[in-house]
């Protein structure tokens, strides 16, 4: 389980707080929708959960241990259980396949050892036809799905998706939604930041509403109504 507990965050000492005592818990086998207006702190909360940003105050717990109290090696090990996928996909130079294998390469894992996982991700998200394409020539939707696939190749326990649906066409949305449901059934904890898209709402077990850096939990039905 990962949990942000009473987290306060600001990006510079003189700026305002982006997160103000915000708390959020991700339990295995669940999907949490993180919703709220633009600039409310959704992305910041996902990055804090992923261990990418150190909050000014509060704790980020991985299985009960604050990752910011850990030494570098243990923090890296903990961080590797969670993968954050940005709203704006970033592709490195090379083909789609090069990008899919980027995380494995960065972790020093031989791609052949993860061959089955890669094949499963490629097949599940229908990427076969674009594997040899230049990753920087992809459409926004294609790049979005490749960046999600790149995260899934790593087999994360916690998947933190920042607005994954808006750029995708209907077929890709359906594929991704099906895959997220499958991952949930396998015990993966998923957070989806977004607005009130039908897919995000339908998939979520609970909704964290964030506004002005404060999180309140709601039942999915209350948002639908």
């Amino acid at each position: 389980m990962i949990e942000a507990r009473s987290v306060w965050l600001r990006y510079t000492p003189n700026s305002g707080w982006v997160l103000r005592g915000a708390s959020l818990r991700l339990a295995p086998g669940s999907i949490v929708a993180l919703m709220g207006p633009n600039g409310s702190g959704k992305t910041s909360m996902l990055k804090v959960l992923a261990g990418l940003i150190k909050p000014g105050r509060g704790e980020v717990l991985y299985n009960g241990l604050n990752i910011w109290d850990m030494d570098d090696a243990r923090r890296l090990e903990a961080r590797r259980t969670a993968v954050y996928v940005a709203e704006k996909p970033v592709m490195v130079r090379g083909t789609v396949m090069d990008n899919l294998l980027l995380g494995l390469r960065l972790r020093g894992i031989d791609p052949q050892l993860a061959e089955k996982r890669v094949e499963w991700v490629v097949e599940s998200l229908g990427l076969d036809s674009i594997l040899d394409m230049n990753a920087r020539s992809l459409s926004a939707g294609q790049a979005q799905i490749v960046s999600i696939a790149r995260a899934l190749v790593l087999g994360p326990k916690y998947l933190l998706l920042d607005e994954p649906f808006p750029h995708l066409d209907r077929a890709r949305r359906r594929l991704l939604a099906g895959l997220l449901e499958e991952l949930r059934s396998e015990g993966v904890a998923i957070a989806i930041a977004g607005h009130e898209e039908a897919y995000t709402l339908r998939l979520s077990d609970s909704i964290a509403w964030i506004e002005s850096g404060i999180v309140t939990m709601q039942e999915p039905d209350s948002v639908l109504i």
Partner: protein
Amino acid sequence: MEDLVGVTARTLYISTTATLLAALWGIPIAYTIAWKRLHTLAAVFEALVGVPTVLIGLLLYLLLSKQGPLGGLNLLYTPTAIIIGEAILVTPLIVGASHRILKVSIDTYGELAASLGSSRIQAMTLALAESLPGLASSTAMAFSRAVGELGVALLVGGNLRGYTRTLSTSIALEVSMGEYGDAIKLGAVLLSLSLGFSIIARLLGDRVDRG
């Protein structure tokens, strides 16, 4: 007029060496500034881009002259003196341009690498690798500045025929002698070198960038 090929080759040797030296220390400085977000230092280097070349030439002349603190090295009026001067001249240019490129790259690729579970070193390496086309462009821009530089070459090179004469000092000499035709010919070569390198660097950078 001195042999055109000889002057051009000497100019290329001096400018290329000076630019590579400046890149050798300028890019690591730029990387450190970008990684550690040393905004004030970045602003200092940006400001130093505007220092007049003749002033750098004068300072270097005072350092390298017989009475200067580095006079014992006997570097005044040698190609090495011009190389040192031009390297100092283009360092702020390389640091300033590279810093801007690396800053964006560290923000973008550094975060991507971290989000995929990389260590800090791997994130830094990825950010650097993805910046290479831009860094090559900034180095080419510095070369363009170095190749046409006059103040340093004249003051610490001395414009010695067959030894420290470069295209820019040759132009100055030809103009002073009223040989405008030769000056224009030398100017055309200088312009071709400057533009040619920039265009080639840009095209190569674009090609690498597209993957």
